[in-house]
């Protein structure tokens, strides 16, 4: 058994008290490595809650700097952080909550060329990106590396999440075969988003990551959870693995990663 310090026992007491977490579950969290892709609306609550939970190694990827228009929903960044790299701003807050952690920052865009090398050392990936090429790239790379991940997306008053365990559950491409044409779906910067729903969805993703690490409950695998915050309607749609999925099906046609037409690196 890991030797907890008195401070750790007090810090994590509300986890240890849970029958489903306990000492063993907290040990798993402290040994776990989670990569957060995107330090924006979703990455903000994810990074704060994973840091607070004591996930021992947290990686965070984002190439942007903090902009004034981010602060309406990206609660890990403060007014003083405008023009600071988002990954550095997020790292500062995570370590301020919990100095126990190792935080690794990647100030870059994930591309076909670099993604597998970055994700391969992590146990779980949380995808909180703002564009479809990145979502498909992360799905494909995680399937190839066999790394479970949480997909999340928000727009206006709506959010959706699903969890993929490669080899066991349906992947993002089983359901959404290809990225939509550029401009078919507006981005948050065009359509707007109610700030608080980033918290609603990001905390769902953080919960999925923690559940996976601890090994408790049922994940959002083979399930698309979506909500309409205007009516506070939540809905779950059952999904199935597709034999003809081009990445996780019986005869995969995607055998190497390529950047989508709307290159992730150029966004």
């Amino acid at each position, binding site marked *: *058994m890991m030797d*907890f310090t008195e401070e750790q*026992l*007090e810090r994590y*007491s509300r986890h*240890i*008290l849970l*029958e489903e977490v*306990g*000492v063993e579950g907290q040990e798993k969290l402290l040994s776990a490595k989670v990569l957060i892709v995107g330090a924006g609306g979703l990455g903000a609550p994810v990074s704060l809650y994973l840091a607070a939970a004591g996930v021992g190694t947290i990686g965070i990827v984002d190439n942007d700097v903090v902009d004034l228009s981010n602060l309406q929903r990206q609660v890990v960044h403060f007014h003083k952080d405008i023009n600071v790299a988002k990954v550095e701003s997020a790292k500062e807050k995570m370590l301020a909550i919990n100095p126990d952690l190792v935080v690794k920052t990647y100030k870059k865009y994930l591309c076909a060329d670099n993604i597998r090398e970055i994700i391969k050392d992590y146990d779980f990936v949380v995808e909180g990106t703002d564009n479809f090429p990145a979502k498909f790239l992360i799905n494909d790379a995680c399937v190839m590396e066999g790394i479970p991940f949480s997909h999340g997306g928000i727009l206006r008053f709506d959010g959706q999440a699903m969890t993929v365990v490669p080899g066991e559950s349906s992947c993002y491409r089983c359901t959404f075969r290809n990225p939509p044409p550029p401009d078919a779906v507006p981005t948050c910067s065009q359509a707007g988003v109610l700030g608080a729903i980033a918290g609603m969805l990001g905390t769902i993703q953080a919960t999925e990551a923690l559940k996976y690490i601890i090994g408790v409950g049922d994940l959002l695998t083979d399930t698309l959870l979506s909500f309409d915050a205007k009516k506070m309607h939540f809905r779950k749609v059952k999904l199935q693995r597709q034999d003809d999925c081009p990445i996780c099906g019986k005869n995969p046609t995607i055998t190497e990663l390529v950047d989508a037409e709307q290159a992730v690196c150029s966004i």
Partner: protein
Amino acid sequence: MAQSRKSDAVRNCRGVGCPMNLVYTKVELAKLESGQVLEVILDDGPPINNVPGSLEREKHIILGKEQLADGAWSILVKKA
């Protein structure tokens, strides 16, 4: 040892309130094998009224409890 039955480990939680007394107890239990017995010393009042029930909810077995001369309680817990 307060109780005649043998225990494999002892944790003194005198002066430790809820819920940290339960946290310390769970940490000690995590070090034991299933079937081993832990003696825990708990204060009178909320600690003795709450901790044994919480342990039973996690399927551990309370083999006995007795009040000590100073008013604290000794409980014997068999790990699930």
